[in-house]
Protein backbone atom coordinates (compact mmCIF):
# COMPACT_ATOMS: atom_id res chain seq x y z
CA UNK A 1 0.00 0.00 0.00
CA UNK A 2 1.34 3.39 -0.94
CA UNK A 3 0.54 6.65 0.71
CA UNK A 4 0.56 10.02 -0.96
CA UNK A 5 -0.08 13.58 -0.04
CA UNK A 6 -1.79 15.83 -2.48
CA UNK A 7 -1.66 19.54 -1.82
CA UNK A 8 -3.87 21.93 -3.72
CA UNK A 9 -3.70 25.70 -3.67
CA UNK A 10 -6.86 27.11 -5.15
CA UNK A 11 -8.01 30.53 -6.21
CA UNK A 12 -9.08 32.55 -3.15
CA UNK A 13 -11.94 34.14 -5.06
CA UNK A 14 -13.87 30.88 -5.05
CA UNK A 15 -16.82 30.78 -2.73
CA UNK A 16 -16.80 28.21 0.03
CA UNK A 17 -19.23 26.04 -1.91
CA UNK A 18 -17.20 26.23 -5.09
CA UNK A 19 -14.07 25.35 -3.22
CA UNK A 20 -15.66 22.34 -1.57
CA UNK A 21 -17.03 21.28 -4.93
CA UNK A 22 -13.59 21.56 -6.48
CA UNK A 23 -11.97 19.44 -3.81
CA UNK A 24 -14.85 17.00 -3.99
CA UNK A 25 -14.33 16.64 -7.71
CA UNK A 26 -10.79 15.41 -7.21
CA UNK A 27 -11.69 13.23 -4.27
CA UNK A 28 -14.33 11.59 -6.38
CA UNK A 29 -11.93 11.03 -9.23
CA UNK A 30 -9.52 9.35 -6.83
CA UNK A 31 -12.03 7.20 -5.02
CA UNK A 32 -13.84 6.16 -8.19
CA UNK A 33 -10.62 4.60 -9.41
CA UNK A 34 -9.85 2.65 -6.27
CA UNK A 35 -7.84 5.20 -4.30
CA UNK A 36 -8.76 6.13 -0.78
CA UNK A 37 -8.77 9.56 0.81
CA UNK A 38 -7.68 8.84 4.35
CA UNK A 39 -7.67 12.34 5.73
CA UNK A 40 -8.23 15.85 4.60
CA UNK A 41 -6.63 18.92 6.07
CA UNK A 42 -7.85 22.33 5.14
CA UNK A 43 -5.92 25.44 6.01
CA UNK A 44 -8.44 27.86 4.59
CA UNK A 45 -7.20 31.07 3.08
CA UNK A 46 -3.56 31.82 3.59
CA UNK A 47 -1.29 34.53 2.38
CA UNK A 48 1.04 33.42 -0.40
CA UNK A 49 4.76 33.88 0.05
CA UNK A 50 4.86 35.47 -3.39
CA UNK A 51 2.12 36.51 -5.79
CA UNK A 52 0.82 33.90 -8.21
CA UNK A 53 -1.18 35.23 -11.16
CA UNK A 54 -1.31 38.54 -9.34
CA UNK A 55 -3.10 36.96 -6.41
CA UNK A 56 -1.76 37.30 -2.91
CA UNK A 57 -3.83 34.66 -1.18
CA UNK A 58 -4.62 31.03 -1.75
CA UNK A 59 -6.90 28.40 -0.34
CA UNK A 60 -4.93 25.44 0.88
CA UNK A 61 -6.08 21.88 1.19
CA UNK A 62 -4.09 18.72 1.77
CA UNK A 63 -5.40 15.27 0.92
CA UNK A 64 -3.82 12.18 2.38
CA UNK A 65 -4.24 9.28 0.00
CA UNK A 66 -3.76 5.59 0.14
CA UNK A 67 -3.79 3.18 -2.76
CA UNK A 68 -2.35 0.03 -4.23
CA UNK A 69 0.63 0.41 -6.54
CA UNK A 70 -1.56 -0.47 -9.52
CA UNK A 71 -4.13 2.15 -8.66
CA UNK A 72 -1.51 4.85 -8.39
CA UNK A 73 -1.53 5.02 -12.18
CA UNK A 74 -4.41 7.41 -11.76
CA UNK A 75 -2.18 10.08 -10.25
CA UNK A 76 -0.80 11.35 -13.53
CA UNK A 77 -4.35 11.92 -14.63
CA UNK A 78 -5.21 13.76 -11.44
CA UNK A 79 -2.16 15.92 -11.96
CA UNK A 80 -3.04 16.55 -15.57
CA UNK A 81 -6.49 17.71 -14.60
CA UNK A 82 -5.18 19.88 -11.80
CA UNK A 83 -2.83 21.49 -14.27
CA UNK A 84 -5.66 22.24 -16.66
CA UNK A 85 -7.91 23.65 -13.99
CA UNK A 86 -7.44 27.39 -13.85
CA UNK A 87 -9.01 27.59 -10.40
CA UNK A 88 -5.98 25.73 -9.13
CA UNK A 89 -2.94 27.93 -8.58
CA UNK A 90 -0.54 25.24 -7.47
CA UNK A 91 -0.55 21.59 -6.57
CA UNK A 92 1.96 19.09 -5.31
CA UNK A 93 1.77 15.36 -4.94
CA UNK A 94 4.31 13.54 -2.84
CA UNK A 95 4.68 9.87 -2.14
CA UNK A 96 5.21 9.45 1.56
CA UNK A 97 5.16 5.77 2.46
CA UNK A 98 8.84 5.17 1.77
CA UNK A 99 10.01 8.14 3.78
CA UNK A 100 7.75 7.29 6.67
CA UNK A 101 8.83 3.68 6.62
CA UNK A 102 12.43 4.73 6.68
CA UNK A 103 11.69 7.09 9.52
CA UNK A 104 9.93 4.33 11.44
CA UNK A 105 12.87 2.04 10.90
CA UNK A 106 15.23 4.58 12.34
CA UNK A 107 13.12 5.60 15.29
CA UNK A 108 14.13 4.20 18.63
CA UNK A 109 12.22 1.05 19.40
CA UNK A 110 9.20 1.77 21.52
CA UNK A 111 9.17 5.44 20.67
CA UNK A 112 6.80 6.98 18.16
CA UNK A 113 8.23 8.26 14.91
CA UNK A 114 9.05 11.84 15.54
CA UNK A 115 8.32 14.50 13.08
CA UNK A 116 8.07 18.02 14.30
CA UNK A 117 4.82 18.54 12.54
CA UNK A 118 3.13 15.78 14.47
CA UNK A 119 3.48 17.80 17.65
CA UNK A 120 2.79 21.38 16.66
CA UNK A 121 2.46 22.53 20.24
CA UNK A 122 5.89 21.40 21.27
CA UNK A 123 8.19 24.31 21.99
CA UNK A 124 10.75 24.66 19.26
CA UNK A 125 14.17 25.37 20.68
CA UNK A 126 15.91 28.35 19.17
CA UNK A 127 18.06 27.27 16.26
CA UNK A 128 21.35 28.87 15.38
CA UNK A 129 19.53 30.81 12.68
CA UNK A 130 19.89 34.28 14.16
CA UNK A 131 23.62 34.27 14.61
CA UNK A 132 24.02 32.25 11.46
CA UNK A 133 22.24 34.92 9.47
CA UNK A 134 24.71 37.45 10.71
CA UNK A 135 27.61 35.23 9.81
CA UNK A 136 26.29 34.80 6.31
CA UNK A 137 25.76 38.50 5.84
CA UNK A 138 29.44 39.06 6.42
CA UNK A 139 30.43 36.89 3.51
Amino acid at each position, binding site marked *: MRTYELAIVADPRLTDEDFVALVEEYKLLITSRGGEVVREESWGK*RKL*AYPIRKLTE*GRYVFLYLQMEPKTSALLPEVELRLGQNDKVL*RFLSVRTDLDLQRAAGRAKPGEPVRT*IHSEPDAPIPA*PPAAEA*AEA*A*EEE
Partner: protein
Amino acid sequence: MSPRPFPGKARGKKPAGKKKTFFKRRKVCRFTAEHIEYIDYKDVKLLQQYILERAKILPRRISGNSARHQRMVSTAIKRARHLALLPFTTD
Protein backbone atom coordinates in the same frame (compact mmCIF):
# COMPACT_ATOMS: atom_id res chain seq x y z
CA MET B 1 32.12 3.82 -4.47
CA SER B 2 34.55 3.46 -1.66
CA PRO B 3 33.20 3.26 1.85
CA ARG B 4 33.25 6.41 3.87
CA PRO B 5 36.49 6.69 5.80
CA PHE B 6 34.77 7.88 8.95
CA PRO B 7 31.31 6.47 9.22
CA GLY B 8 28.91 7.66 11.84
CA LYS B 9 29.82 10.19 14.43
CA ALA B 10 33.54 9.90 14.11
CA ARG B 11 33.82 13.55 13.18
CA GLY B 12 34.13 16.14 15.87
CA LYS B 13 36.91 17.33 18.08
CA LYS B 14 40.26 17.91 16.57
CA PRO B 15 43.32 17.15 18.61
CA ALA B 16 43.57 20.17 20.84
CA GLY B 17 46.61 22.28 21.56
CA LYS B 18 48.44 21.64 18.33
CA LYS B 19 49.81 24.73 16.70
CA LYS B 20 47.25 27.51 16.54
CA THR B 21 44.41 27.06 18.89
CA PHE B 22 41.35 28.93 17.93
CA PHE B 23 38.05 28.45 19.59
CA LYS B 24 35.48 26.67 17.56
CA ARG B 25 32.12 26.01 19.06
CA ARG B 26 30.86 22.58 18.29
CA LYS B 27 27.73 22.59 16.19
CA VAL B 28 25.17 19.91 16.60
CA CYS B 29 22.45 18.73 14.35
CA ARG B 30 19.25 19.53 16.09
CA PHE B 31 17.31 16.81 14.29
CA THR B 32 19.78 14.12 15.19
CA ALA B 33 19.70 15.24 18.78
CA GLU B 34 15.93 15.14 18.92
CA HIS B 35 15.58 11.94 16.89
CA ILE B 36 13.48 13.55 14.25
CA GLU B 37 13.28 11.29 11.26
CA TYR B 38 10.97 13.08 8.92
CA ILE B 39 10.72 16.74 8.08
CA ASP B 40 7.43 17.87 6.68
CA TYR B 41 7.15 20.54 4.01
CA LYS B 42 4.01 21.81 5.69
CA ASP B 43 5.88 22.70 8.85
CA VAL B 44 6.41 26.27 7.80
CA LYS B 45 7.37 27.53 11.21
CA LEU B 46 10.22 25.08 11.42
CA LEU B 47 11.44 25.62 7.88
CA GLN B 48 11.47 29.36 8.29
CA GLN B 49 14.23 28.93 10.80
CA TYR B 50 16.37 27.39 8.08
CA ILE B 51 16.13 30.18 5.56
CA LEU B 52 18.19 33.33 5.60
CA GLU B 53 17.00 36.88 5.28
CA ARG B 54 17.13 36.71 1.52
CA ALA B 55 15.21 33.44 1.72
CA LYS B 56 18.21 31.33 0.87
CA ILE B 57 18.57 27.94 2.47
CA LEU B 58 20.79 28.09 5.52
CA PRO B 59 23.99 26.22 4.68
CA ARG B 60 24.96 23.18 6.61
CA ARG B 61 28.25 24.60 7.70
CA ILE B 62 26.32 27.15 9.68
CA SER B 63 23.36 25.17 10.93
CA GLY B 64 25.45 22.12 11.74
CA ASN B 65 22.78 19.81 10.35
CA SER B 66 23.82 16.30 9.51
CA ALA B 67 23.91 15.56 5.80
CA ARG B 68 20.79 13.46 5.98
CA HIS B 69 18.81 16.05 7.83
CA GLN B 70 20.09 18.89 5.70
CA ARG B 71 18.82 16.99 2.70
CA MET B 72 15.43 16.61 4.32
CA VAL B 73 15.32 20.28 5.21
CA SER B 74 16.26 21.40 1.74
CA THR B 75 13.74 19.18 -0.04
CA ALA B 76 11.08 20.31 2.39
CA ILE B 77 11.93 23.95 1.76
CA LYS B 78 11.83 23.44 -1.98
CA ARG B 79 8.44 21.80 -1.79
CA ALA B 80 7.14 24.55 0.44
CA ARG B 81 8.40 27.14 -2.02
CA HIS B 82 6.51 25.56 -4.84
CA LEU B 83 3.28 25.89 -2.86
CA ALA B 84 4.11 29.50 -1.95
CA LEU B 85 4.39 28.62 1.71
CA LEU B 86 7.91 29.99 1.63
CA PRO B 87 9.46 32.62 -0.62
CA PHE B 88 12.06 31.92 -3.29
CA THR B 89 13.52 35.31 -2.63
CA THR B 90 12.71 38.61 -1.01
CA ASP B 91 12.70 41.85 -2.89
